[in-house]
Protein backbone atom coordinates (compact mmCIF):
# COMPACT_ATOMS: atom_id res chain seq x y z
CA UNK A 1 0.00 0.00 0.00
CA UNK A 2 2.75 2.42 1.02
CA UNK A 3 6.24 2.01 -0.30
CA UNK A 4 9.33 4.11 0.38
CA UNK A 5 12.32 3.50 -1.80
CA UNK A 6 15.69 4.90 -0.67
CA UNK A 7 14.23 8.14 0.62
CA UNK A 8 16.53 11.00 1.60
CA UNK A 9 15.15 14.16 3.20
CA UNK A 10 17.06 17.25 4.22
CA UNK A 11 15.89 20.26 6.23
CA UNK A 12 17.84 23.46 5.69
CA UNK A 13 20.70 21.59 4.08
CA UNK A 14 20.94 19.16 6.96
CA UNK A 15 20.44 15.54 6.02
CA UNK A 16 17.77 14.16 8.37
CA UNK A 17 16.48 11.03 6.66
CA UNK A 18 19.04 8.85 4.96
CA UNK A 19 18.26 6.04 2.61
CA UNK A 20 15.07 4.78 4.22
CA UNK A 21 13.16 2.05 2.42
CA UNK A 22 10.08 0.42 3.84
CA UNK A 23 6.85 -1.17 2.76
CA UNK A 24 3.49 -1.41 4.49
CA UNK A 25 0.66 -3.60 3.25
CA UNK A 26 -3.07 -3.00 3.36
CA UNK A 27 -4.58 -3.45 6.81
CA UNK A 28 -1.24 -3.68 8.59
CA UNK A 29 -0.48 -2.05 11.93
CA UNK A 30 3.16 -1.00 11.96
CA UNK A 31 5.28 0.84 14.51
CA UNK A 32 8.09 3.31 13.88
CA UNK A 33 10.42 3.39 16.86
CA UNK A 34 13.23 5.73 17.63
CA UNK A 35 14.50 8.15 20.24
CA UNK A 36 14.25 11.92 20.20
CA UNK A 37 15.77 13.36 17.06
CA UNK A 38 15.95 10.03 15.25
CA UNK A 39 13.91 11.51 12.41
CA UNK A 40 10.50 9.92 13.03
CA UNK A 41 8.58 13.16 12.56
CA UNK A 42 10.62 14.14 9.52
CA UNK A 43 9.95 10.76 7.95
CA UNK A 44 6.21 11.13 8.57
CA UNK A 45 6.21 14.65 7.20
CA UNK A 46 7.97 13.35 4.11
CA UNK A 47 5.39 10.61 3.59
CA UNK A 48 2.51 13.07 4.08
CA UNK A 49 4.03 15.46 1.55
CA UNK A 50 4.73 18.34 3.93
CA UNK A 51 8.42 17.89 3.15
CA UNK A 52 9.71 16.76 -0.23
CA UNK A 53 12.44 14.11 -0.37
CA UNK A 54 15.48 15.16 -2.40
CA UNK A 55 16.12 11.61 -3.46
CA UNK A 56 14.13 8.40 -3.53
CA UNK A 57 10.43 7.87 -4.04
CA UNK A 58 7.25 7.47 -2.03
CA UNK A 59 4.40 5.54 -3.62
CA UNK A 60 0.92 5.08 -2.22
CA UNK A 61 -1.28 2.40 -3.79
CA UNK A 62 1.14 2.23 -6.67
CA UNK A 63 1.02 5.97 -7.41
CA UNK A 64 4.10 8.13 -6.76
CA UNK A 65 3.08 10.84 -4.27
CA UNK A 66 6.39 12.47 -3.39
CA UNK A 67 5.78 15.42 -5.70
CA UNK A 68 2.11 15.94 -4.87
CA UNK A 69 0.93 18.83 -2.67
CA UNK A 70 -0.34 17.80 0.77
CA UNK A 71 -4.04 18.27 0.05
CA UNK A 72 -3.85 15.97 -2.98
CA UNK A 73 -2.27 13.26 -0.83
CA UNK A 74 -4.99 13.67 1.81
CA UNK A 75 -7.61 13.29 -0.93
CA UNK A 76 -6.03 9.95 -1.84
CA UNK A 77 -6.71 8.72 1.69
CA UNK A 78 -3.31 9.08 3.37
CA UNK A 79 -3.77 11.26 6.45
CA UNK A 80 -1.17 12.48 8.95
CA UNK A 81 -2.17 13.17 12.55
CA UNK A 82 0.72 15.50 13.42
CA UNK A 83 2.79 15.43 16.58
CA UNK A 84 1.88 17.54 19.59
CA UNK A 85 -1.93 17.29 19.50
CA UNK A 86 -2.36 19.82 16.76
CA UNK A 87 -5.81 21.41 16.89
CA UNK A 88 -7.64 24.55 15.84
CA UNK A 89 -7.69 25.96 19.39
CA UNK A 90 -10.25 28.73 18.90
CA UNK A 91 -12.76 26.50 17.14
CA UNK A 92 -15.27 24.19 18.80
CA UNK A 93 -14.95 20.40 18.93
CA UNK A 94 -17.62 20.05 16.27
CA UNK A 95 -15.87 22.48 13.92
CA UNK A 96 -12.51 20.78 14.45
CA UNK A 97 -14.11 17.49 13.43
CA UNK A 98 -15.90 19.03 10.45
CA UNK A 99 -12.58 20.40 9.22
CA UNK A 100 -11.20 16.89 9.42
CA UNK A 101 -13.92 15.93 6.96
CA UNK A 102 -12.77 18.62 4.52
CA UNK A 103 -11.67 16.12 1.83
CA UNK A 104 -15.22 14.69 1.73
CA UNK A 105 -17.02 18.04 2.15
CA UNK A 106 -20.41 18.08 0.53
CA UNK A 107 -21.13 14.43 1.36
CA UNK A 108 -23.38 15.20 4.30
CA UNK A 109 -24.45 11.64 5.03
CA UNK A 110 -20.92 10.32 5.11
CA UNK A 111 -19.80 13.19 7.35
CA UNK A 112 -22.65 12.53 9.78
CA UNK A 113 -21.83 8.81 9.82
CA UNK A 114 -18.17 9.52 10.56
CA UNK A 115 -19.10 12.07 13.19
CA UNK A 116 -21.21 9.46 14.97
CA UNK A 117 -18.37 6.98 14.70
CA UNK A 118 -15.88 9.40 16.29
CA UNK A 119 -18.33 10.22 19.08
CA UNK A 120 -18.79 6.50 19.68
CA UNK A 121 -15.02 6.08 20.00
CA UNK A 122 -14.65 9.11 22.27
CA UNK A 123 -17.93 9.76 24.09
CA UNK A 124 -16.35 12.64 25.98
CA UNK A 125 -16.17 14.64 22.77
CA UNK A 126 -19.92 14.45 22.32
CA UNK A 127 -20.42 15.99 25.74
CA UNK A 128 -18.28 18.94 24.71
CA UNK A 129 -19.47 19.58 21.19
CA UNK A 130 -19.45 23.37 21.50
CA UNK A 131 -16.42 23.78 23.74
CA UNK A 132 -13.34 25.41 22.27
CA UNK A 133 -10.62 22.85 21.57
CA UNK A 134 -7.93 25.02 23.16
CA UNK A 135 -9.52 24.62 26.60
CA UNK A 136 -9.08 20.83 26.62
CA UNK A 137 -6.70 18.73 28.72
CA UNK A 138 -3.86 16.92 26.98
CA UNK A 139 -5.66 13.59 26.73
CA UNK A 140 -8.85 15.13 25.39
CA UNK A 141 -6.86 17.11 22.84
CA UNK A 142 -5.22 13.92 21.61
CA UNK A 143 -8.60 12.21 21.33
CA UNK A 144 -9.90 15.12 19.31
CA UNK A 145 -6.80 15.11 17.10
CA UNK A 146 -7.25 11.38 16.37
CA UNK A 147 -10.99 11.81 15.90
CA UNK A 148 -10.41 14.59 13.43
CA UNK A 149 -7.96 12.46 11.45
CA UNK A 150 -10.63 9.74 11.18
CA UNK A 151 -13.29 12.10 9.85
CA UNK A 152 -12.24 11.71 6.22
CA UNK A 153 -12.18 7.89 6.47
CA UNK A 154 -8.49 7.58 5.62
CA UNK A 155 -7.25 4.38 4.05
CA UNK A 156 -4.02 4.88 5.93
CA UNK A 157 -3.37 6.86 9.08
CA UNK A 158 0.04 8.16 10.15
CA UNK A 159 -0.01 8.76 13.90
CA UNK A 160 2.93 10.80 15.11
CA UNK A 161 3.65 10.12 18.81
CA UNK A 162 0.10 10.17 20.16
CA UNK A 163 1.23 9.14 23.67
CA UNK A 164 3.72 11.90 24.30
CA UNK A 165 3.15 13.75 27.58
CA UNK A 166 0.00 11.85 28.55
CA UNK A 167 -0.88 10.08 31.79
CA UNK A 168 -0.38 6.26 31.68
CA UNK A 169 -4.12 5.66 31.98
CA UNK A 170 -4.83 7.88 28.98
CA UNK A 171 -2.03 6.22 27.01
CA UNK A 172 -3.74 2.89 27.62
CA UNK A 173 -7.07 4.26 26.40
CA UNK A 174 -5.52 5.82 23.30
CA UNK A 175 -3.66 2.57 22.55
CA UNK A 176 -6.94 0.64 22.73
CA UNK A 177 -8.64 3.06 20.39
CA UNK A 178 -5.82 2.89 17.86
CA UNK A 179 -5.97 -0.92 17.85
CA UNK A 180 -9.69 -0.64 17.35
CA UNK A 181 -9.23 1.72 14.41
CA UNK A 182 -6.88 -0.75 12.80
CA UNK A 183 -8.91 -3.90 13.41
CA UNK A 184 -12.53 -2.86 13.18
CA UNK A 185 -12.37 0.04 10.78
CA UNK A 186 -9.88 -1.72 8.57
CA UNK A 187 -7.57 1.29 8.49
CA UNK A 188 -3.89 0.75 7.88
CA UNK A 189 -2.00 2.43 10.72
CA UNK A 190 1.61 3.57 10.88
CA UNK A 191 2.38 4.58 14.45
CA UNK A 192 5.46 6.51 15.50
CA UNK A 193 6.39 6.17 19.16
CA UNK A 194 9.10 6.72 21.72
CA UNK A 195 7.07 4.57 24.06
CA UNK A 196 8.35 1.34 22.51
CA UNK A 197 6.67 -0.80 25.13
CA UNK A 198 3.21 0.43 24.26
CA UNK A 199 3.85 0.41 20.52
CA UNK A 200 5.28 -3.12 20.43
CA UNK A 201 2.35 -4.46 22.44
CA UNK A 202 -0.29 -3.34 19.98
CA UNK A 203 1.39 -3.39 16.56
CA UNK A 204 2.28 -6.38 14.38
CA UNK A 205 5.74 -5.33 13.30
CA UNK A 206 8.04 -2.35 13.45
CA UNK A 207 10.92 -0.34 12.07
CA UNK A 208 13.62 1.18 14.25
CA UNK A 209 15.03 4.53 13.19
CA UNK A 210 18.38 5.81 14.43
CA UNK A 211 19.98 9.08 13.24
CA UNK A 212 17.76 9.05 10.20
CA UNK A 213 18.60 5.51 9.15
CA UNK A 214 16.48 2.44 9.38
CA UNK A 215 18.67 0.16 11.50
CA UNK A 216 16.32 -2.68 12.32
CA UNK A 217 12.98 -4.09 11.33
CA UNK A 218 10.94 -7.17 12.08
CA UNK A 219 7.86 -8.42 13.85
CA UNK A 220 7.16 -7.23 17.35
CA UNK A 221 8.04 -10.46 19.14
CA UNK A 222 11.42 -10.34 17.50
CA UNK A 223 11.99 -6.64 18.24
CA UNK A 224 10.95 -7.03 21.88
CA UNK A 225 13.67 -9.60 22.48
CA UNK A 226 16.32 -7.74 20.52
CA UNK A 227 19.10 -6.71 22.86
CA UNK A 228 19.57 -3.27 21.29
CA UNK A 229 15.90 -2.40 21.37
CA UNK A 230 15.58 -3.54 24.95
CA UNK A 231 18.51 -1.44 26.05
CA UNK A 232 17.68 1.68 24.10
CA UNK A 233 13.89 1.87 24.22
CA UNK A 234 12.41 -0.40 26.83
CA UNK A 235 15.00 0.11 29.53
CA UNK A 236 15.11 -3.45 30.78
Amino acid sequence: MLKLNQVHTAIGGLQIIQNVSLEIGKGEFVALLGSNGAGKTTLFRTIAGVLKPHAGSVTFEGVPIDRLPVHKIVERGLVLCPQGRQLFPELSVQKNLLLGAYPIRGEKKRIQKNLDRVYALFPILRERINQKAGTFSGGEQQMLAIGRALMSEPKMLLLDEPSVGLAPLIVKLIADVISNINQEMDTTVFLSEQNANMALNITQRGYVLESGRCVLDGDCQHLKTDEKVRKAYIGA
Partner: protein
Amino acid sequence: MITKPIHTRLMYLALFIAALLLPLYVPDDYIFQIVIMSVLYAIATSAMNLIIGFTGQASLAHGAFFGIGAYGVAILTKAGISFWVALPVSALIAALVGVLVGIPALRTRGHYFAIVTLCFGVIMWILAGNWIELTGGHNGIFGIPQPTPVRLPWLGEIEFFSQTAQYYLALGFLLLTLFGLHRLIFSVFGLTFMAIRNNEPLADAVGINTFTTKLIAFVSANFIAALAGGLYASMIGAVSPSAASHMLTFNFLIFVILGGIATLSGAVIGAFAIPIIMEFLQFLGDYRMLFFGALLVVVIIFFPQGLVGGLRRLNQRIAVWRQNKVSE
Protein backbone atom coordinates in the same frame (compact mmCIF):
# COMPACT_ATOMS: atom_id res chain seq x y z
CA MET B 1 -25.04 25.38 15.54
CA ILE B 2 -25.72 27.84 18.33
CA THR B 3 -28.59 30.15 17.53
CA LYS B 4 -28.35 33.70 18.71
CA PRO B 5 -30.39 34.59 21.79
CA ILE B 6 -33.62 36.42 21.07
CA HIS B 7 -32.51 39.75 22.54
CA THR B 8 -29.54 39.84 20.15
CA ARG B 9 -31.89 39.32 17.23
CA LEU B 10 -34.16 42.08 18.48
CA MET B 11 -31.15 44.35 18.80
CA TYR B 12 -30.15 43.69 15.19
CA LEU B 13 -33.71 44.36 14.06
CA ALA B 14 -33.78 47.63 16.01
CA LEU B 15 -30.45 48.66 14.49
CA PHE B 16 -31.74 47.83 11.02
CA ILE B 17 -34.87 49.94 11.49
CA ALA B 18 -32.80 52.77 12.99
CA ALA B 19 -30.54 52.64 9.93
CA LEU B 20 -33.50 52.68 7.54
CA LEU B 21 -35.10 55.67 9.26
CA LEU B 22 -31.85 57.58 9.72
CA PRO B 23 -32.57 60.32 7.13
CA LEU B 24 -35.62 61.31 9.22
CA TYR B 25 -33.70 62.16 12.37
CA VAL B 26 -30.18 63.04 11.25
CA PRO B 27 -29.51 66.57 12.64
CA ASP B 28 -27.72 68.19 9.70
CA ASP B 29 -26.10 67.60 6.33
CA TYR B 30 -22.62 67.60 7.79
CA ILE B 31 -23.33 64.73 10.19
CA PHE B 32 -25.24 62.98 7.41
CA GLN B 33 -22.15 63.13 5.23
CA ILE B 34 -20.06 61.61 8.02
CA VAL B 35 -22.60 58.81 8.38
CA ILE B 36 -22.49 58.09 4.65
CA MET B 37 -18.69 57.95 4.79
CA SER B 38 -18.96 55.62 7.78
CA VAL B 39 -21.19 53.29 5.78
CA LEU B 40 -18.57 53.19 3.00
CA TYR B 41 -15.77 52.65 5.50
CA ALA B 42 -17.83 49.90 7.13
CA ILE B 43 -17.95 48.08 3.78
CA ALA B 44 -14.18 48.37 3.35
CA THR B 45 -13.51 47.47 6.99
CA SER B 46 -15.75 44.37 6.84
CA ALA B 47 -13.77 43.24 3.82
CA MET B 48 -10.50 43.86 5.63
CA ASN B 49 -11.82 41.80 8.52
CA LEU B 50 -12.21 38.86 6.13
CA ILE B 51 -8.49 38.72 5.36
CA ILE B 52 -7.07 40.01 8.66
CA GLY B 53 -9.65 38.88 11.21
CA PHE B 54 -11.01 35.63 9.85
CA THR B 55 -8.08 34.37 7.77
CA GLY B 56 -5.38 35.84 10.00
CA GLN B 57 -3.28 37.34 7.19
CA ALA B 58 -2.33 40.92 8.05
CA SER B 59 -2.83 42.58 4.68
CA LEU B 60 -1.79 46.24 4.89
CA ALA B 61 -2.59 46.96 1.25
CA HIS B 62 -6.28 47.46 1.85
CA GLY B 63 -6.21 51.24 1.34
CA ALA B 64 -4.49 50.72 -1.99
CA PHE B 65 -7.33 48.51 -3.22
CA PHE B 66 -9.88 51.01 -1.96
CA GLY B 67 -7.88 53.51 -4.03
CA ILE B 68 -7.88 51.32 -7.13
CA GLY B 69 -11.68 51.24 -6.92
CA ALA B 70 -11.88 55.00 -6.34
CA TYR B 71 -9.49 55.95 -9.16
CA GLY B 72 -11.00 53.32 -11.44
CA VAL B 73 -14.48 54.78 -11.11
CA ALA B 74 -13.12 58.33 -11.34
CA ILE B 75 -11.18 57.72 -14.54
CA LEU B 76 -13.81 55.54 -16.22
CA THR B 77 -16.80 57.77 -15.46
CA LYS B 78 -14.86 60.89 -16.51
CA ALA B 79 -14.26 59.08 -19.79
CA GLY B 80 -18.01 58.86 -20.19
CA ILE B 81 -18.63 55.30 -19.07
CA SER B 82 -21.70 54.71 -16.90
CA PHE B 83 -21.11 54.46 -13.18
CA TRP B 84 -22.90 51.10 -13.14
CA VAL B 85 -20.35 49.69 -15.55
CA ALA B 86 -17.38 51.52 -14.07
CA LEU B 87 -18.00 50.23 -10.55
CA PRO B 88 -17.87 46.47 -11.25
CA VAL B 89 -15.08 46.95 -13.80
CA SER B 90 -12.97 48.82 -11.23
CA ALA B 91 -13.64 46.17 -8.62
CA LEU B 92 -12.63 43.45 -11.08
CA ILE B 93 -9.43 45.34 -11.88
CA ALA B 94 -8.71 45.48 -8.14
CA ALA B 95 -9.38 41.74 -7.87
CA LEU B 96 -7.00 41.06 -10.76
CA VAL B 97 -4.30 43.22 -9.18
CA GLY B 98 -5.07 41.31 -5.96
CA VAL B 99 -4.32 38.02 -7.70
CA LEU B 100 -1.07 39.39 -9.16
CA VAL B 101 0.06 40.78 -5.80
CA GLY B 102 -1.31 37.88 -3.77
CA ILE B 103 0.49 35.10 -5.63
CA PRO B 104 3.98 36.27 -4.61
CA ALA B 105 2.95 38.03 -1.37
CA LEU B 106 1.04 35.09 0.14
CA ARG B 107 4.15 32.93 -0.07
CA THR B 108 5.38 34.98 2.88
CA ARG B 109 3.90 34.56 6.34
CA GLY B 110 3.19 36.60 9.44
CA HIS B 111 5.08 39.88 9.69
CA TYR B 112 6.64 39.38 6.30
CA PHE B 113 3.25 39.30 4.63
CA ALA B 114 2.36 42.52 6.47
CA ILE B 115 5.58 44.17 5.24
CA VAL B 116 5.13 43.04 1.62
CA THR B 117 1.55 44.27 1.47
CA LEU B 118 2.46 47.52 3.21
CA CYS B 119 5.13 48.10 0.55
CA PHE B 120 2.57 47.53 -2.18
CA GLY B 121 0.23 49.98 -0.42
CA VAL B 122 2.91 52.66 -0.26
CA ILE B 123 3.87 52.09 -3.90
CA MET B 124 0.26 52.57 -4.99
CA TRP B 125 0.06 55.77 -2.96
CA ILE B 126 3.23 57.12 -4.60
CA LEU B 127 1.91 56.07 -7.99
CA ALA B 128 -1.36 57.91 -7.35
CA GLY B 129 0.58 61.06 -6.47
CA ASN B 130 2.99 60.99 -9.39
CA TRP B 131 1.38 59.42 -12.44
CA ILE B 132 -0.03 62.81 -13.35
CA GLU B 133 -1.46 61.89 -16.79
CA LEU B 134 -3.63 59.16 -15.30
CA THR B 135 -4.35 60.26 -11.74
CA GLY B 136 -3.90 64.02 -11.79
CA GLY B 137 -1.02 63.77 -9.34
CA HIS B 138 -1.41 65.23 -5.86
CA ASN B 139 -4.36 67.35 -6.94
CA GLY B 140 -6.29 64.23 -7.81
CA ILE B 141 -9.35 64.08 -10.04
CA PHE B 142 -12.28 66.49 -9.70
CA GLY B 143 -15.80 66.60 -11.02
CA ILE B 144 -16.47 62.89 -10.96
CA PRO B 145 -20.08 62.36 -12.02
CA GLN B 146 -22.49 61.07 -9.42
CA PRO B 147 -24.08 57.65 -9.90
CA THR B 148 -26.41 57.89 -12.87
CA PRO B 149 -30.13 57.24 -12.31
CA VAL B 150 -31.30 53.69 -12.81
CA ARG B 151 -34.64 52.61 -14.19
CA LEU B 152 -36.18 49.77 -12.24
CA PRO B 153 -39.34 47.89 -13.18
CA TRP B 154 -42.37 49.03 -11.11
CA LEU B 155 -40.35 51.53 -9.11
CA GLY B 156 -39.60 53.82 -12.02
CA GLU B 157 -36.47 55.89 -12.23
CA ILE B 158 -34.28 56.21 -9.14
CA GLU B 159 -31.84 59.06 -8.86
CA PHE B 160 -28.80 59.28 -6.61
CA PHE B 161 -28.30 63.04 -6.42
CA SER B 162 -29.64 63.67 -2.92
CA GLN B 163 -27.76 62.70 0.23
CA THR B 164 -30.67 60.49 1.25
CA ALA B 165 -30.53 58.51 -1.98
CA GLN B 166 -26.76 58.14 -1.73
CA TYR B 167 -27.12 56.98 1.85
CA TYR B 168 -29.54 54.25 0.83
CA LEU B 169 -27.28 53.22 -2.02
CA ALA B 170 -24.32 52.87 0.35
CA LEU B 171 -26.47 51.13 2.97
CA GLY B 172 -27.67 48.68 0.32
CA PHE B 173 -24.08 47.82 -0.54
CA LEU B 174 -23.20 47.44 3.14
CA LEU B 175 -26.09 45.04 3.75
CA LEU B 176 -25.18 43.11 0.63
CA THR B 177 -21.55 42.87 1.81
CA LEU B 178 -22.56 41.73 5.28
CA PHE B 179 -25.01 39.20 3.88
CA GLY B 180 -22.35 37.83 1.54
CA LEU B 181 -19.70 37.68 4.26
CA HIS B 182 -22.15 36.04 6.66
CA ARG B 183 -22.97 33.34 4.14
CA LEU B 184 -19.29 32.82 3.41
CA ILE B 185 -18.01 32.79 6.98
CA PHE B 186 -20.61 30.35 8.30
CA SER B 187 -20.07 27.89 5.45
CA VAL B 188 -17.62 24.98 5.38
CA PHE B 189 -15.43 27.10 3.14
CA GLY B 190 -15.51 29.94 5.68
CA LEU B 191 -14.43 27.46 8.32
CA THR B 192 -11.25 26.87 6.35
CA PHE B 193 -10.38 30.58 6.68
CA MET B 194 -10.53 30.28 10.46
CA ALA B 195 -8.62 26.99 10.30
CA ILE B 196 -5.77 28.78 8.53
CA ARG B 197 -5.76 31.54 11.15
CA ASN B 198 -5.77 28.98 13.97
CA ASN B 199 -3.11 26.59 12.73
CA GLU B 200 -1.90 26.82 9.17
CA PRO B 201 0.34 23.71 9.11
CA LEU B 202 -2.55 21.67 10.48
CA ALA B 203 -4.96 23.16 7.95
CA ASP B 204 -2.53 21.86 5.35
CA ALA B 205 -2.43 18.42 6.98
CA VAL B 206 -6.23 18.26 7.07
CA GLY B 207 -6.27 18.60 3.31
CA ILE B 208 -7.05 22.28 2.84
CA ASN B 209 -5.29 23.94 -0.06
CA THR B 210 -4.11 26.76 2.16
CA PHE B 211 -2.50 28.87 -0.53
CA THR B 212 -5.56 28.98 -2.77
CA THR B 213 -7.83 29.57 0.21
CA LYS B 214 -5.73 32.52 1.38
CA LEU B 215 -5.66 33.89 -2.15
CA ILE B 216 -9.45 33.69 -2.41
CA ALA B 217 -9.86 35.51 0.93
CA PHE B 218 -7.34 38.18 -0.13
CA VAL B 219 -8.91 38.75 -3.55
CA SER B 220 -12.48 38.82 -2.21
CA ALA B 221 -11.45 41.38 0.39
CA ASN B 222 -9.80 43.50 -2.29
CA PHE B 223 -12.82 43.28 -4.57
CA ILE B 224 -15.14 44.54 -1.85
CA ALA B 225 -12.68 47.28 -0.79
CA ALA B 226 -12.62 48.51 -4.38
CA LEU B 227 -16.44 48.59 -4.50
CA ALA B 228 -16.39 50.81 -1.42
CA GLY B 229 -13.70 52.98 -3.03
CA GLY B 230 -15.72 53.33 -6.23
CA LEU B 231 -18.82 54.41 -4.34
CA TYR B 232 -16.67 56.86 -2.39
CA ALA B 233 -15.26 58.50 -5.52
CA SER B 234 -18.64 58.91 -7.07
CA MET B 235 -20.33 60.29 -3.97
CA ILE B 236 -17.56 62.71 -2.97
CA GLY B 237 -17.02 63.76 -6.57
CA ALA B 238 -13.24 63.91 -6.21
CA VAL B 239 -10.33 61.59 -5.40
CA SER B 240 -6.80 62.39 -4.29
CA PRO B 241 -3.89 60.12 -3.33
CA SER B 242 -5.18 60.09 0.26
CA ALA B 243 -7.95 57.76 -0.97
CA ALA B 244 -5.28 55.20 -1.84
CA SER B 245 -2.91 55.76 1.03
CA HIS B 246 -1.59 53.49 3.75
CA MET B 247 -3.03 55.95 6.27
CA LEU B 248 -6.44 54.80 5.11
CA THR B 249 -5.34 51.21 5.70
CA PHE B 250 -4.39 52.05 9.26
CA ASN B 251 -7.73 53.78 9.81
CA PHE B 252 -9.50 50.59 8.69
CA LEU B 253 -7.19 48.59 10.92
CA ILE B 254 -8.08 50.74 13.93
CA PHE B 255 -11.79 50.33 13.13
CA VAL B 256 -11.41 46.56 13.03
CA ILE B 257 -9.35 46.31 16.21
CA LEU B 258 -11.43 48.69 18.31
CA GLY B 259 -14.71 47.34 16.99
CA GLY B 260 -13.82 43.69 17.42
CA ILE B 261 -11.56 41.65 15.19
CA ALA B 262 -13.01 38.54 13.54
CA THR B 263 -16.59 39.52 14.31
CA LEU B 264 -18.97 40.67 11.58
CA SER B 265 -20.51 43.38 13.73
CA GLY B 266 -17.17 44.62 15.07
CA ALA B 267 -15.99 46.02 11.75
CA VAL B 268 -19.25 47.93 11.29
CA ILE B 269 -19.32 49.23 14.86
CA GLY B 270 -15.71 50.39 14.59
CA ALA B 271 -16.32 52.15 11.28
CA PHE B 272 -19.27 54.05 12.76
CA ALA B 273 -18.11 54.73 16.28
CA ILE B 274 -14.63 56.01 15.60
CA PRO B 275 -15.31 58.73 13.00
CA ILE B 276 -18.10 59.99 15.27
CA ILE B 277 -15.82 60.00 18.34
CA MET B 278 -13.24 61.79 16.19
CA GLU B 279 -15.83 64.48 15.43
CA PHE B 280 -16.51 65.03 19.10
CA LEU B 281 -12.78 65.33 19.75
CA GLN B 282 -12.34 67.87 16.96
CA PHE B 283 -11.44 70.57 19.54
CA LEU B 284 -8.28 68.64 20.49
CA GLY B 285 -6.79 69.12 17.04
CA ASP B 286 -3.92 66.80 16.31
CA TYR B 287 -3.80 65.72 19.95
CA ARG B 288 -6.75 63.47 19.11
CA MET B 289 -4.21 60.97 17.88
CA LEU B 290 -2.60 60.89 21.31
CA PHE B 291 -5.96 59.96 22.79
CA PHE B 292 -6.46 57.31 20.13
CA GLY B 293 -3.06 55.79 20.65
CA ALA B 294 -3.79 55.36 24.34
CA LEU B 295 -7.24 53.92 23.59
CA LEU B 296 -5.76 51.42 21.16
CA VAL B 297 -3.22 50.19 23.72
CA VAL B 298 -5.89 49.80 26.40
CA VAL B 299 -8.19 47.89 24.05
CA ILE B 300 -5.46 45.53 22.85
CA ILE B 301 -4.42 44.72 26.41
CA PHE B 302 -7.81 44.43 28.09
CA PHE B 303 -10.23 43.72 25.23
CA PRO B 304 -8.28 41.83 22.57
CA GLN B 305 -11.61 41.18 20.85
CA GLY B 306 -12.53 44.86 20.84
CA LEU B 307 -15.87 46.35 21.73
CA VAL B 308 -17.84 43.35 20.49
CA GLY B 309 -15.62 40.98 22.48
CA GLY B 310 -16.16 43.15 25.56
CA LEU B 311 -19.92 43.06 25.07
CA ARG B 312 -19.85 39.30 24.64
CA ARG B 313 -17.97 38.91 27.89
CA LEU B 314 -20.48 41.14 29.62
CA ASN B 315 -23.28 39.03 28.14
CA GLN B 316 -21.68 35.86 29.49
CA ARG B 317 -21.33 37.38 32.95
CA ILE B 318 -25.01 38.33 32.92
CA ALA B 319 -25.91 34.78 31.87
CA VAL B 320 -23.83 33.32 34.70
CA TRP B 321 -25.31 35.77 37.20
CA ARG B 322 -28.84 34.87 36.08
CA GLN B 323 -28.11 31.17 36.38
CA ASN B 324 -26.77 31.65 39.89
CA LYS B 325 -29.84 33.62 40.80
CA VAL B 326 -32.15 30.90 39.48
CA SER B 327 -30.28 28.17 41.37
CA GLU B 328 -30.38 30.09 44.66
